[in-house]
């Protein structure tokens, strides 16, 4: 699996000189499988830039297909959809797997994003590409572009978000953004879900001091991320979903703190940064 970061920021895009190095776009990660298939995780504003790149290949000619895994439907995780050029090309095919009691419910939520009060697109029906929306089964493994995927629901403030475990030929990538553990930290069942991942991408929104005053928002601190990585004995931890108010220098300090914690355990820390690639 080849992982690439297109958006790494939490809550709202944060343009500005102080976010240039890590990037200000909201959550979007692409995974290219060994066979060259494409899985996209989350549809934040980073999705537009992924889409612009894809248009140079098969997606520009209507011959592209991808599965999209959606953690939850807060705006920062869906905002890029209307600006993803491949959905306007006839012939392309997408399957979205996300949270919902039913596929119709999830599709209705994405349709609401296109409401004419908010978007000139007005409806998903105006996409030219085939765009299937499916509620991801919880606990049961499903296939996406040849990967084995399992979804796990964790608390996220007053709601929940899905984490995804992607497996290909024994290699494991876990995406766990927007995770709000109880004050005691990562729970045993979450750790089992992450167990042995080669790469664990984990919500690292806050420093512990900021998390303490914003518990109800349902995000992790970088200490939660380190605790999860250590307990699940992963190989590499990717820090992700930085608070919109954190500058590049703030993120540098978060990464350095994670490295101090995890280096003695032999776990490598890789900060998510727009444009960077990571191979498993």
């Amino acid at each position, binding site marked *: 699996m080849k992982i690439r970061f297109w958006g790494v920021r939490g809550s709202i895009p944060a343009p500005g000189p102080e*976010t240039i190095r890590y990037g200000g776009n909201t959550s979007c990660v692409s995974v290219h499988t060994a066979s060259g298939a494409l899985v996209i995780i989350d549809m934040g504003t980073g999705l537009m830039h992924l889409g612009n790149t894809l248009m140079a290949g098969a997606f520009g000619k209507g011959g592209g297909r991808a599965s999209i895994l959606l953690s939850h439907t807060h705006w920062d995780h869906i905002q890029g959809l209307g600006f993803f050029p491949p959905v306007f090309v006839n012939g392309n095919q997408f399957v979205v797997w996300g949270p919902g009691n039913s596929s119709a419910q999830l599709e209705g939520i994405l349709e609401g*994003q296109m409401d004419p009060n908010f978007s000139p697109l*007005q409806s998903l029906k105006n996409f030219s590409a085939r765009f299937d929306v499916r509620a991801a089964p919880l606990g049961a493994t499903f296939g996406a572009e040849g990967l084995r995927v399992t979804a796990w629901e964790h608390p996220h403030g007053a709601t929940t978000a899905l984490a995804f475990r992607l497996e290909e030929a024994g290699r494991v990538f876990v995406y766990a953004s927007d995770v709000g553990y109880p004050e005691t930290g990562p729970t045993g069942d979450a750790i089992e879900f992450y167990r042995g991942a080669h790469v664990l991408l984990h919500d690292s929104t806050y420093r512990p001091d900021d998390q303490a005053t914003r518990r109800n928002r349902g995000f992790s601190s970088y200490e939660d991320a380190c605790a999860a990585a250590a307990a699940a004995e992963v190989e590499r931890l990717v820090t992700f979903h930085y608070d919109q108010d954190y500058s590049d220098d703030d993120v540098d300090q978060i990464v350095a703190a994670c490295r101090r914690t995890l280096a003695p355990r032999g776990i490598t820390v890789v900060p998510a940064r727009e444009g960077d690639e990571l191979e498993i």
Partner: protein
Amino acid sequence: MKVRFWGVRGSIPVPGRSTNRYGGNTSCVEVRPAGEAPIIVDAGTGIRRLGKALMEDAFAAGKGKASILISHTHWDHVQGLPFFSPLYRAGNQIHIFARQRDLHLEAVFSQQHHAPYFPVPLSAMQADMHFHELIEGARFNIGRARITCARLNHPWVAIAYRIDVDRAAVVYCSDTAPFTDLLLGRDFIEAPKLGTLPPPVREELDAMRAGVVALARGADLLIYDTQFTPAEYTSRPHWGHSRPDDALDIARTAKVKALALFHHAPMRSDEENDAILAAVRESSRAAGDQLAIHSAYEGLELTLGDNP
């Protein structure tokens, strides 16, 4: 009055190196009459930073008052509102003005703030929020400022605002298509064929243009949607945006003193914006206009009229 740009981008925020000088935040302009509360036009992502700046004075103590004029509720013009810090402080008075269409304004904004799209419902905001629904031609006062508005040529509904105060006038005219080829009161998704117009549409477009010209008449500053190049307009006329020449035409006809190019396309780099500005200045000079031309960037502040 002072006019300050906090977000100048159209459609979607674009963080990154190539947009860093002009800025990647979506539409938000602060108009500050001398000695009075801010009048904010649009609540794109730029309003987040404005909110933080406001929290350095009366708003932190819950004694702030602000009015927000919304051109329309497309996401790039309202996305910043849930991140506007003064809303989270009891005592602050926030007035929101917009033209609604099918839903009451408060319902539209509630939908934006509500699960499953956002964690904090509008009803949980501590500040006092007041919604004011406008119709075309509405005239009202905010403090000493006189506000007037006019309908624009944009999908669903959008309006332009004029603010007169301190013996000066600023006009905010974003988002609109030119008043030439198609009428966006009905909503196109497929690009229409440009060409002939049935007479009633022609008349309605002429009336809309006349309304905008009247609104902008003699203004000290006209802020205008110039998202498109001519080629982009030809391929996407139904998106409801203008070209620099459309802005120049209105500026010239309305005899405004200064024009600010605004609502830059998301993928437009700083260098491309520089080149567009140079070309527009050159073409305006060649036409003999007496017109100052700016290309709006985050942090640009202009002083108009009296400022004791």
